[in-house]
């Protein structure tokens, strides 16, 4: 297990990837980082004020060589068979199931109409969802003091 800690909009993110996988990259531009945008998609932002910056066409990362194939990597929960290699994303203590697809993309049922090119983007996107999600138990959703790891 390879653990990475991130922080996004005051939320504490922990990513537990299968052993041997590359840690999440943050290839967002400076402006996206300042704006706390989860994934840089300037190419699609007609109103983006730095649309003329040099933004190479995003290529899906393909860590196929690094990724354990089914049956060769960490033990898979049978209920998750068919979804790729599972891993965990923890945000402010809440755990979310995520998967490395065979394509090398990163996926979670939390946001099933998107895949991400690295686990950091996925984790930040889930964290963004917590901004508007109903608290799971009706209690406060976001700690007043950001947790640091």
């Amino acid at each position: 297990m390879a653990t990475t800690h991130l922080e996004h909009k005051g939320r504490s993110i922990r990513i537990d990837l299968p052993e041997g996988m590359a840690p999440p990259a943050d290839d967002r531009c400076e402006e996206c980082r300042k704006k706390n945008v989860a994934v840089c998609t300037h190419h699609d932002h007609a109103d983006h004020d730095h649309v003329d910056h040099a933004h190479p066409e995003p290529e899906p990362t393909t860590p196929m060589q690094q990724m354990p194939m089914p049956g060769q990597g960490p033990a898979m929960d049978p209920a998750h068979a068919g979804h790729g290699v599972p891993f965990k994303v923890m945000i402010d203590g809440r755990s979310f199931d995520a998967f490395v697809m065979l394509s090398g993309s990163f996926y979670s049922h939390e946001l099933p109409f998107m895949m991400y090119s690295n686990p950091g983007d996925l984790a930040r996107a889930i964290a963004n969802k917590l901004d508007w999600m109903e608290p799971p138990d009706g209690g406060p959703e976001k700690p007043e003091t950001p947790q640091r790891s």
Partner: protein
Amino acid sequence: MGVRRNQRRLSAADKTRFVAAVLEMKAKPAASYGYDKYVAMHVAAFVGGPNTNAAHLGPTFFPWHREFLRLFEVDLQAADTALGEDGSITLPYWDWTRDNSPDPTKKAGAIWKDSFMGPKGNPVASGPFKTGSWALAPPGGSLKRALGDSVLDGNTVPTLATRAEVDAATANHGFDTFPFSEDSDGGQSVSGPNSPTAKGVAGGALPAGQYFVVITYQNGNGESLPSAPRKVCLGGACTPANTGTAIEVTAPAARPSATGYSVYVTAVGGAAGTETFQAGPILIGTNHTVTALVVGRARPTVNTTSSFRNVLEGWFPVVSRPALHNRTHVWVGMTMSGGNSPDDPVFFLHHCNIDRLWARWQFRHPGQQYPQVVPMVGIPGNRPQGLNDVLTPFAIRPIDVLNHTTLGYTYDTDPPGVAINVSP
């Protein structure tokens, strides 16, 4: 037969009637014509056991949602009848290439008026589905929409797909292709070395009967390019009479990157386990003679060169840039961005449009192109999605819903006087 119409062509009375029927569904339990069971059904299509995610990321994306919408429409009509109408109501569709504004004061944003779907908001604060009037299915909550506003949802995208993107998607000749996932290829242009030919002698270890033969290119990147399936007849009882060289299939032109090809033979009907994989990969430029047909492990029996399904679903060309169907979910955002997306009634207008575009593609590319067998290997293909496999949780198979006009409805965009052709 009901006609599903563009929501922009509905009268004010039509819209009021549709909203009333949806609210009536919401007030009823699942055993009746209740709304919330559809949310649970869609959530279950993402999480669960070995049939997990039967509704997405594979060829069943279209037939699963077609049946899902059909059942919803039947319940909608029951609700309509309960309200004193004649039950003839149909689902409208939302053409998001044209009605692409989040602003309800603009014509292209009229769908978001308070008299119909209501506006964006965290939560939605006006219209028939505002907080306090519309509760999400258990565990509950309020409807939330971003409509491209990244302040409301940091994961949204600012624009919807265009007409040109839809046209490019429906130009794909193939329905779906290996690996039947988010990685299935789109596009149509191929070029490369001369096409090989596979020849064979009838009979072998297979009984007399009809078989499909497919030649599929392979390369080191896992790409594949199958030929259209050629139906051949083996055995003395064949009509026309078998000549002893019944198998002769020429492959499509290969991509320059192709390193070899394989030959697949499948019994007509696609029964699992009747397919055999012939001596591959065979070097490009070499013709292959089929010397024995041995019952073997099921292999993909695709008959397409690209995946209309994957392009319209929205994973092509880059999975991290949501396109077409996926893009609409992400643009509406918030409630519509999760597995519980049917909690937002606009889900049904969106998917009605997706179903219409499948029908449009079928009119444009006649013939049965749904894969006979989808391999039970790979990710996320670990569930049966072939032509004759039952779709969870429905009691229907893809083959049962290929022709929408047999299901009791048409679209106002169906070409008049043209019968849909989904025959092999």
